[in-house]
């Protein structure tokens, strides 16, 4: 008797397993770990308001996120750089259209050790001299970067080559995504870069503004001269576009078909309305109000395609969105 009961139990368990009874709506998001803190914060707020909608967020990186996005595995992709042509092609092959929405700015910050007295600002040309591929093995002393700097050894820290930050910095400074010298200490963890620069008087590194803001006691930010005099990386300078060329917008990409689902529509609208407050809270810079208006309008009109891919560095987000 107990054997029959056991068998029955096993069969019902097996049946239960194959019958998917999950009813709730799940919004699937994956992508850049740079955008993650904002998306996490929005998801947290959103779920407090809509209890029956579940939001899940992964951190596969911008590239890894797009890989899932273009094969229809996710509804929204976090991205710290615009979509690439190769990714766009795959999306088209799979019949996926997307809506590209900027959600905040990140100010890439060049930092030096607190005790570094000789670097106050650097021009883009000097940064290029320092970081371009040709510098590898040749530019090793600070006096080679600018006359008057001491003849001390240059020690460099930067993000790894898989990172969107690396892509953007090399594009903005060296004139091509991925163009960089290789003889620096890379790390995917920005806190490691902070430690590195904080521990060496002659070191220089670059990463997102939030990491500088949290470590102001150990690091100095270098003012960047993009042609209009040295500008400090501050919240306001990034937001009004005067900190150039190292301010970059970060994005979410929404699947066009998924956007028509009520719960995803709700989420994206919520995102664009709340992003301004949330961005600041988690260490990023909010876009100007106009930009959020444009983005919301773009989303409501379901305008697909990318306007940021290959856009000239320095053109404002509002300008690009109003096209």
């Amino acid at each position, binding site marked *: 008797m107990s054997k029959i009961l056991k068998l029955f*139990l096993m069969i*019902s*368990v097996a049946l*239960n*397993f194959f019958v*998917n*009874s*999950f009813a709730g709506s*799940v919004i699937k998001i*994956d992508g850049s*770990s740079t955008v*993650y*803190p904002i*998306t*996490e*914060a929005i*998801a*947290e707020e959103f*779920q407090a308001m809509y209890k029956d909608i*579940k*939001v*899940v*967020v*992964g*951190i*596969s990186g911008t590239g890894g996120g797009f890989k*899932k996005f273009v094969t229809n*595995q996710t509804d929204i992709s976090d991205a710290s750089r615009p979509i690439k042509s190769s990714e766009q092609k795959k999306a088209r092959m799979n019949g996926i259209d997307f809506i590209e929405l900027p959600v905040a700015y990140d100010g890439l910050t060049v930092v030096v050790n607190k005790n570094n007295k000789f670097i106050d600002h650097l021009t883009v040309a000097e940064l290029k001299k320092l970081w371009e591929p040709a510098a590898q093995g040749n530019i090793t002393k600070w006096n080679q970067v600018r006359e008057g700097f001491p003849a001390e050894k240059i020690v460099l820290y930067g993000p790894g080559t898989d990172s969107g930050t690396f892509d953007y910095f090399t594009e903005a400074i060296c004139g091509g995504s991925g163009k960089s010298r290789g003889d620096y200490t890379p790390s*995917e*963890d*920005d*806190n490691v870069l902070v430690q590195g620069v904080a521990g060496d008087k002659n070191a220089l590194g670059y990463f*997102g503004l*939030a*990491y500088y*803001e*949290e*470590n102001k006691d150990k690091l100095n930010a270098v003012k960047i001269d993009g042609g209009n005099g040295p500008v400090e990386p501050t919240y306001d300078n990034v937001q009004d576009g005067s900190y150039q060329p190292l301010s970059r917008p970060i994005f979410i990409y929404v699947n066009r078909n998924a956007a028509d689902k009520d719960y995803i529509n709700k989420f994206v609208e919520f995102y664009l309305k709340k992003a301004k407050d*949330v961005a600041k*809270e*988690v*260490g990023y810079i909010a876009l100007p109000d106009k930009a959020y208006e444009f983005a919301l309008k773009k989303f409501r009109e379901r305008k697909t395609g990318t306007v940021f891919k290959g856009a000239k560095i320095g053109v404002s987000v509002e300008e690009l969105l109003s096209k």
Partner: protein
Amino acid sequence: MKEKKLINKIRDNFFPVAGLLATIISLGILFVLIIDVLKDGYMRLNLQFLTNYPSRIPEKAGILSAWVGTLWIMVLTALFIFPVGVASGIYLEEYAKPGKMKDFLEINISNLAGVPSIIYGLLGLQIFVYFFKLDRSVLAGALTLSLVVLPIVIVATRESLKAVPLSLREASFALGANKLQTILFQVLPSAFSGILSGVILSMSRAIGETAPLITIGALTYIAFLPAGPFTTEFPFITLQGLKDYFTVLPIQVFNWVSRPQKGFHSDAAAGIIILLIISLFINFMAIYLRIKFEKYMRRK
């Protein structure tokens, strides 16, 4: 003469002293690590930390989804690796005939034990997530981790079986038992405490694995739990949770460590403390069960 004696004595004592030094160094590093983590994370250790979901506010952030996910994955992994690992260990040690086939299997299993875990992640992604369409579920995660630690279980099982004295088997055969009976009733029970240690130690490796789970797409932010295994409706038990999304403690810690805000670093430290506690608990279980089993065997 006297001098030679002294030199001999020094030589004699050199090795134990060097060994002691090595032990102290490794223990010392562990000690410093634990102190450091405790210092950073103790103030975040409270009930709220265990019952809250992740949050953008470090003081409100918790590890509920992470530790429940870890528990799910660990229990399932144990369920998978125990029968499969022990059965293949028994086959290789007791049944497989010496020859090319056995050599081939042996070389492969020892090699598998050394494969970086991220490779298993890629394998799991292709097989479990895409081919079997399990999505990024608890089940896919547990199966992937099972692959990672299976070679360890197999090797441990074989080593424990090897350690069973031949006289025991011969005695069993002499009493008229056949091969299966000998293995099931004599060899396996004698080797069992060793096998158990192997299984549990491999669990404590699995608990810290992050790379393969991130590769198969385990999530980072998730504010709900896999469906529990018990329901109020007939048949009162459900495996729905197997198909739900999940995250695990190491992924949550990894995310917090790389955030800029100091508050998250404290959260990460507190997460590490919880992970250490779980891992210590698993090791403690291994020792306890082994002692218990050995006592039981002796009484028999």
